[in-house]
Every structure is written in structure tokens, then in C-alpha cells.
């Protein structure tokens, strides 16, 4: 069928089954927007900033496991999208971003709104394309979606010069893809799997270390089955929260810089790490030379480059976590769960010694209380997104996640401003769910214009702002490591949050007591409108436990009244 390049873009999006596209028009992409106007195969959401559009597509992808799509124009439209691409890249999120480009004849001339999009995005995309002719456009669109969702997923950029969107050509959307140089490995090597099972049988202190890859490969049921069959304890990374379910007796918790005591000690003392879709990030390992000193490592990862990148691996298995576990599970029948009884008891004692805890207060709302209360009030019904900082860590530590894809946050890149637009994407994907963005008074301002988007399209996202009038996580480091010189972290000057939300068509709540918290949340759910819940929380609360950057994982700063609240420490000092 003959059609324009712009029509081809729309037809490809429809053929891929995408129901919602997030974007922002501009000169170079106008022909495509003209076709969007004429079609009714998908809905377009006009975010109020390109970065937010890409984060929204990302949130949509994380909530569903499907490819998210965002559309931006050339030049500044594209450069605004770069943070979104990098965020998705670091967390391996399947996404296709379509950007306009100046006409082919102007490329390289420093034309108006021209920027080298493929050059800039090369290090933060799985792959990218500059379309050079109308003939190759259908194939490139097909390959973009294919590359985004297969193998280790990731964002793919398709940069389309304006004249190609106007030109007409023959459109037949390819049914299959043939890229001879791209053949991801899904099935694990059988021999390696057998060896790994032997190692599990011989281990005394094995530990399942589960990462974001477990979510991406939809392997959570198999991981729970493996844990239950072998009774091996489990630690989750930040990206894997929800894989085991919060009340699973074998889940020790989250490990890493803000992991709980038992998880970090388990990692330090284990003799066999079974890594499933995790990548030994520095926020997980702490000081590498002290990391898991007594352990052999089974590393299952779909990306061979992740294996032996940071730690030496005795049992590398390249493959999809789900497919590897399908092979491995029958072989685990002969594992004797009693073998690890002593190990489980050691870990139980560790957890009793220093459980994940905080000191609650009757005078002020503790941020941890707010998160636990959210869990009690909305629990498994909700999808939780977050921004980046203290609130993110408290959410990861204290929210009772029941399932994968319930917890959506920027782990690898750590992008402030991610949470609100990601929540918009998640809510579009799951309108029936309550979607809550747990955020801080720093992060929320980085994409607050999305109030307008959410109000216009009636996307009732609840933003719970844990407001400590600080750039909290930086302030915490300044307290601990910079002798309390609070350089540029004091956010005492603030907007009127309630008025701000209302000015943009949403609702605002100012919350200072626990009673007000409950009332505001209930009202927000009932009103079903986008809202800001401005929750005043204890100002100097610290995220604990904490492994100082570069320190060994077992050297944790544990919750004591002085460490937990730096203001208390100050009061003591002045006595």
C-alpha cells in the first residue's frame, strides 16, 4: 500500500498493538502529528515536557512489560528526551522513541533545530537509527520494536528526517526481523546448569540474589518456586522489590547501601551466590574487594557483558532467567532443604538482632510511618512509583510489595523527576489501579508541569510528597560526611503546594498529623483527581541502615536514635 512516511509511523505503532503514545509536537515531526490527528488506532497524551513524555512511556512499559512509545521533535525536543532515554537504558526498559529530524538535505548544515540525535543518544540507547530513505522506514520501525523488547530490553531511537515523513512509498509492515548480527541467547547452556545445580547441592550457605532482570523476564513465579523447593534464603535488589512478595518467609529483604542488616550479612557470609538477573551494581556490592569473600557465584544473565564484569564468576549462565529456571527447577528435586537449616537460623538471628526498623513519633510524621501507612491503606491494590532520594529508599524498605511491576523507580540512573510522569504512564496502562508517586519536595518540582497533563487527561495520580524541606539524601551525606555543611540543600523556601496543585487543575492537601494523612489519602482516592499530598515529615530523619559509599557491605551504620535523627544529635551537642 502506498502511503507517506508519517502514515507509516502511525501504522507501525498500531500494528505493534500500542494503545497510548506520549509526546510533544514540533516542526520536524509535524507531518506525523498530522497523521496522528486523522487516526484512531491509538491515543496520544500531550505531556508538558519531552522528558516527562519519555518517562511516561517508560512507566507504561514498566507497568505492562510492553514497549512504551514516545514521540518528540528535533533539536531541543530530542535533547530534552535524552534523560528519559538514559533512564530507560540503565534499567533495561523496552521503549521506542521517535524523533523528528531536519530534512535530509539540511543534515550537517547546523539547520534550525538540528542536532545529531543518533550521535548524542548512542551511549544511552540499545540501538538507534537515522532513517535515510522512505524504502527502509518500514523495516527500521519493525526492527526498532523488535530490538527494544528482545534480548536484554532497552530503549531504541528512530530519528526521521522531515522530508521522509512527507514522501510516499510502499508500506508493507514486515512480519519478521532478520538481523544476522543480533541473536540473543535465551536458553542457558545445559552443562553449565547441571554444574550450577551441583554447586547448590554442595553449598552450605547458598543465597538467592534477585535483580531487575527477574522482573523483566517475568520469572517471579519460578523464583518463588525455586526458593520454596530448596528453602534457600532470598535477597532482592532495589529493582526486584515485589518478586518474592513482602511477607514471604524466605525473603530477607533488600540488600545494598540501604539494605537491611540480615540481607547484607547474608551476602557477606554466603558461600554460594545464585544471581538471577542482577548485575552487581556498586550500590549493591559496596567495596568490591570485601564483597562476598567466601562465595562462589552462579550468575544467570541474558547479557554476557554483565557476567564477570565486576566480580569473578565460577558458574556463568548466559540466558533468560525464566528459561534457565525452567531447565533448572526439575534438577533441584534432589536438593535437601534441611542442608541449609543452620544457615537459615544464623540469618534469622541476624534479623532479630537488627530488624528493619525506625523510631516512630507522636509529635511528627515519620516518613517511614507514612509509607507503612500507605501500605496498610492501599497495599496490593496500588502501583507505587517514586522519584530519587530518601523517600525512594524508605519506599523500597517499608512498602509491602506483593508482586513485580508494582514498584516503579529509576534505579540505575537515579533520575529525579521520574516518578510523576512514570505514574502517569502506569495509570494509563492500569486505569483500574490506584497509582501513587512517593516523592520528595526536591524531586517533585523537577516535573511538576505534569500536573497539567494529568488534570487535562483526567489521570488521577496521587503524589505523596514526603516534605522535609531538604534535598534529603544529599543533606544526609552532608550530615555524615561533610561536617553538616548544608551546601545548597536547604529547601525552606517552598511553593504553596495546595495552591500549586489547584492552579493546575488538581487537588492539594497539607498534612501535618497522622489523622490528616489518613483523611487526605481517603479523600484523594475518592475524588479521583490528580493531587499533591504535602506531608510534613521529620526534618532530619536519615535513611538507615547505611553502608557509606566505598565501604564494605558488612560495615553498616545501624539505626540508633542519634543516627536516625540528626536533629536529636544536635540537641545533645548543645546541652
Amino acid at each position, binding site marked *: 500500500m502506498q502511503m507517506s512516511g508519517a502514515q507509516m509511523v502511525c501504522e507501525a505503532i498500531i500494528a505493534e498493538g500500542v494503545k497510548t503514545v506520549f509526546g510533544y509536537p514540533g516542526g520536524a515531526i509535524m507531518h506525523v502529528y498530522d497523521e496522528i490527528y486523522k487516526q484512531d488506532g491509538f491515543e496520544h497524551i500531550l505531556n508538558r515536557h519531552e522528558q516527562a513524555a519519555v518517562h511516561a512511556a517508560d512507566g507504561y512499559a514498566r507497568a505492562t512489560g510492553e514497549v512504551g512509545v514516545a514521540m518528540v521533535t528535533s533539536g531541543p525536543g530530542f535533547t530534552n528526551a535524552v534523560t528519559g532515554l538514559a533512564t530507560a537504558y540503565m534499567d533495561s526498559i523496552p521503549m521506542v522513541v521517535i524523533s523528528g529530524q531536519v530534512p535530509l538535505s539540511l543534515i550537517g548544515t547546523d539547520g534550525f533545530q538540528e542536532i545529531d540525535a543518533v*550521535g548524542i543518544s*548512542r551511549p544511552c540507547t540499545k540501538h538507534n537509527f*537515522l532513517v535515510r530513505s522512505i524504502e527502509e522506514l518500514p523495516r527500521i520501525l519493525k526492527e526498532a520494536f523488535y*530490538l527494544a523488547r528482545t534480548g536484554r530490553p532497552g530503549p531504541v531511537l528512530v530519528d526521521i528526517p522531515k522530508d521522509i515523513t512527507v514522501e510516499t512509498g510502499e508500506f508493507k509492515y514486515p512480519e519478521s526481523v532478520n*538481523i544476522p548480527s543480533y541473536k540473543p541467547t535465551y536458553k542457558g547452556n545445559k552443562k553449565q546448569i547441571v554444574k550450577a545445580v551441583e554447586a547448590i547441592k554442595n553449598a552450605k550457605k547458598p543465597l538467592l540474589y534477585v535483580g531487575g532482570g527477574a522482573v523483566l523476564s517475568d520469572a517471579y513465579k519460578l523464583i518463588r518456586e525455586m526458593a520454596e523447593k530448596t528453602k534457600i534464603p532470598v535477597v532482592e535488589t532495589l529493582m526486584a522489590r515485589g518478586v518474592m512478595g513482602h511477607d514471604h518467609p524466605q525473603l530477607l529483604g533488600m540488600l545494598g547501601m540501604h539494605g537491611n542488616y540480615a540481607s547484607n550479612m547474608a551476602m557477606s557470609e554466603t558461600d554460594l551466590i545464585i544471581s538471577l538477573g542482577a548485575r552487581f551494581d556498586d550500590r549493591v556490592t559496596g567495596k568490591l574487594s570485601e564483597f562476598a569473600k567466601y562465595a562462589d557465584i552462579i550468575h544467570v544473565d541474558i547479557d554476557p557483558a554483565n557476567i564477570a564484569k565486576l566480580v569473578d564468576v565460577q558458574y556463568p549462565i548466559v540466558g533468560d532467567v525464566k528459561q534457565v529456571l525452567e531447565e533448572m527447577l526439575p534438577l533441584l528435586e534432589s536438593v535437601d532443604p534441611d542442608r541449609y537449616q543452620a544457615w537459615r537460623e544464623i540469618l534469622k538471628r541476624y534479623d532479630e538482632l537488627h530488624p528493619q526498623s525506625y523510631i516512630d513519633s507522636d509529635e511528627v510524621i515519620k516518613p517511614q510511618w507514612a509509607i507503612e501507612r500507605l501500605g496498610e491503606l492501599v497495599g496490593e491494590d496500588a502501583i507505587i512509583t517514586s522519584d530519587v532520594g530518601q523517600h525512594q529508599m524508605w519506599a523500597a524498605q517499608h512498602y509491602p510489595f506483593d508482586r513485580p511491576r508494582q514498584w516503579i523507580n529509576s534505579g540505575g540512573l537515579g533520575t529525579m523527576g521520574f516518578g510523576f510522569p512514570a505514574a502517569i504512564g502506569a495509570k494509563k496502562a492500569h486505569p483500574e489501579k490506584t497509582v501513587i508517586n512517593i516523592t520528595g519536595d526536591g524531586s517533585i518540582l523537577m516535573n511538576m508541569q505534569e500536573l497539567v497533563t494529568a488534570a487535562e487527561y483526567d489521570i488521577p495520580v496521587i503524589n505523596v510528597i514526603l516534605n522535609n524541606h531538604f534535598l534529603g539524601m544529599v543533606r544526609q551525606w552532608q550530615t555524615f560526611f561533610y561536617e553538616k555543611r548544608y551546601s545548597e540543600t536547604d529547601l525552606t523556601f517552598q511553593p504553596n503546594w495546595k495552591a500549586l496543585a489547584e492552579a493546575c487543575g488538581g487537588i492539594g492537601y497539607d498534612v501535618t498529623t497522622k489523622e490528616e494523612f489518613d483523611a487526605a489519602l481517603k479523600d484523594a482516592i475518592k475524588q479521583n483527581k490528580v493531587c499533591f499530598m504535602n506531608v510534613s515529615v521529620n526534618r532530619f530523619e536519615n535513611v538507615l541502615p547505611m553502608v557509606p559509599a566505598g565501604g564494605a557491605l558488612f560495615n553498616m551504620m545501624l539505626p540508633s536514635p542519634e543516627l536516625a535523627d540528626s536533629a536529636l544529635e544536635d540537641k545533645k551537642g548543645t546541652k
Partner: protein
Amino acid sequence: MANEKRVISVIVMNESSVLARITSMFAARGYNIESLTVAPIPDSDMSHITIATNGSSKVMEQITKQLHKLIPVYKVIEHEEMVEKEMVLAKFPIAENLADISVLASAYNGGVVNVGKEMIIVMAADEPKRIKHFIEAAQRYNPCEIIRGGVVAIER
């Protein structure tokens, strides 16, 4: 872990910006490129890139894996048993001892390729280590210009 010199052949789809993908990966991850040559493979839609680099075996493993990860990369060969050659062109003033220069070039598997009014140009093609020796030996004839071509390698 000792830093070793290594030669890697990368077979890639011959498409635009493929070389940029490879070099920017090296730059972004802090790997070193000592020399790089690239040319299309006859009768195919692929190109052969030869990269001389150095690093520990762990770094080499990562380089190979990261290269593989690039979508247009078809094959990566980490050379072990290889024949390795490099070409060099050198230009000398005509007033120098031409017979000596000619003998020098032929000793390194080359010869005189051009003689003009003021200059003589010779070439040599040999193992990179020997090319280094050639350049050292050429110094006494006051070369005006020496251009090395970069390593190409083929597995034995």
C-alpha cells in the same frame, strides 16, 4: 594482571555510523585504541575492522563482550595465533644516501615506491614490532615524514 597488547578483528555490517559506534564504546568505557584499520570485505555487505589495543585479560574480555553487544557487530575475533602486518610509508630528502635507504626498505619487506625531484618515498610492510625497528633505523636518513598504516591481522 599484566597489560598485554592484543589485536581484535571485528566483522561488522557495513552501514553508516558503525565505526562511530565502536570507537565511542571504547571511549565511553575507557578502553585504549592503539591502532585501527577498516575496509569493506570483498563481495559482502560487511566490513573488517582491526583494532590493536591493550589491557588485562579481564579488560579484554569486557571489550570483546561489549563489542558483541553492539547490534551491527557480527563477529569478534580475539587473535591468538595470528599473522600480523603493518604498512608504513616514509619520505626522505633526495640528498640522503639512496642506496642505503633502498636496502633498509627491502630489509623490512618493502622498497622504493616513488622518486621525485626533491624526495624519495619508500614503503615497508612487516610485523608491527619490526616496523618500529624500521622507523628507528630510518631516523639517521633524516626522514621528512613517516606514516604508519595501522595493524591488520589474520588468524593462522
